[in-house]
């Protein structure tokens, strides 16, 4: 039937819901793996989050993170999971742009592109 192939708001939301779930599942798996490695590597040490020092520069940028990941740093694995998690809602907005374009709803393509632009601006500003 034709209407089963067509994309309406209801179907779009179902796909978005799945997209978000898969993203969270993936991110959680990476964070969990990184967490185990992290505990194993720091088993003897004492934590102190009382004083704020900020994370080392390598953990704050994508390039630095990639370099750390190559050395098998557990903290870097967790941060990759965190980035995957942040990327999940962004992917939802990207999907909305595509979805509204398929629905030929120009107004909401513009609305979703605006949201995407704001998200991108914050990400680019922070890199």
């Amino acid at each position, binding site marked *: 039937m034709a209407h089963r192939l067509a994309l309406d*708001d209801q179907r779009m*939301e179902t796909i*978005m*819901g*799945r997209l*978000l*779930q898969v993203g*969270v599942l993936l991110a*959680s798996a990476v*964070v*969990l793996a*990184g*967490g185990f490695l*992290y*505990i194993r590597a*720091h*088993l*003897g*040490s*004492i*934590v*102190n*989050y*009382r*004083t*704020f*020092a*900020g*994370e080392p520069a390598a*953990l*704050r*940028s994508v390039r630095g993170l990639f370099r750390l990941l190559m050395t098998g740093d*557990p*903290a*870097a694995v*967790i*941060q990759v*999971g*965190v*980035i995957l*998690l*942040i990327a*999940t*809602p*962004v992917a*939802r*907005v990207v999907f*909305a742009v595509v979805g509204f374009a398929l629905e030929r709803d120009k*107004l*909401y393509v513009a*609305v979703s592109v*605006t*949201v995407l632009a*704001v*998200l991108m*601006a*914050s990400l680019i*500003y*922070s*890199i």
Partner: protein
Amino acid sequence: MRRISGFAIGHLAALPVLTFTLLVFAGSLAAGLLGALTGLGGGVVLVPLLTVVFHVDIRYAIGASLISVIATSSGAAAAYVREGFSSVRIGMFLEIATTIGAIFGAFLATRMPTRVLGITFGVVLLYSAWLSWRQTRFHESEAVRVSPWSDRLRLSGSYPDRSGGECSYKVDRISAGFATMFGAGTLSGLLGIGSGAVKVLAMDRIMRIPFKVSTTTSNFMIGVTAAASAGIYLHRGYVDPGLAFPVMLGVLAGSLLGAKLLVRAQVSLLRSIFTVVILALGVEMIVNGWVGRL
């Protein structure tokens, strides 16, 4: 190191990694569970838990909380969608306001003294406690006036009613709702919470969107709002991997468990307990912020 509240609880500031991780995971699980059962979200109790009980610097707490907020919003998404209430258009339209607000909030957070952050958080907690107290008696408002922009912006929609039919609705006071959403985004970016209560307030009370549509659409919006400020926090070094991982996994597990238990739970009792807890935490955060202990 300052030890002002250094009784038994003070020792939680310096623990071996494994113990600390397990305690934070358990605390986050409880926060996520209560947050899901009461509909207030885990972040609102998580940040005071980390700062007041575990003596974590409020900036680390906000960073970890924000990450957990994205996880819970996205993790619960499919369940909400199945109900068929949420509106992708209203959500996307209002996300313009919440994302810009979130960036503004994160910008403010990196410039505000931590004691001001603490006091602001305390005030938000007291307000949440008050809202939670009144929750049982919300009015089902009859939409009398309708903004002409509701149709022009294609915000009008419908949702399934109990008899299997469709119940249509229109949206009122769009600019006021939009402005409130900017405020919700700012709070989210500033304090690392989902600010679901403010989002529902903007949609349900101001824009007169049906309650079920408001709450489910709010859940969808929370993740996108939080993502807008998460990059800034990550870049500023507020997201510590060792803290973020038990918090994120704990809150996520707790909220998924909470969603399952919701059917059988004694929500009114839980809500009363939760109200007292956040009231106490709110007062504690204001006092701590006031005397500069955060």
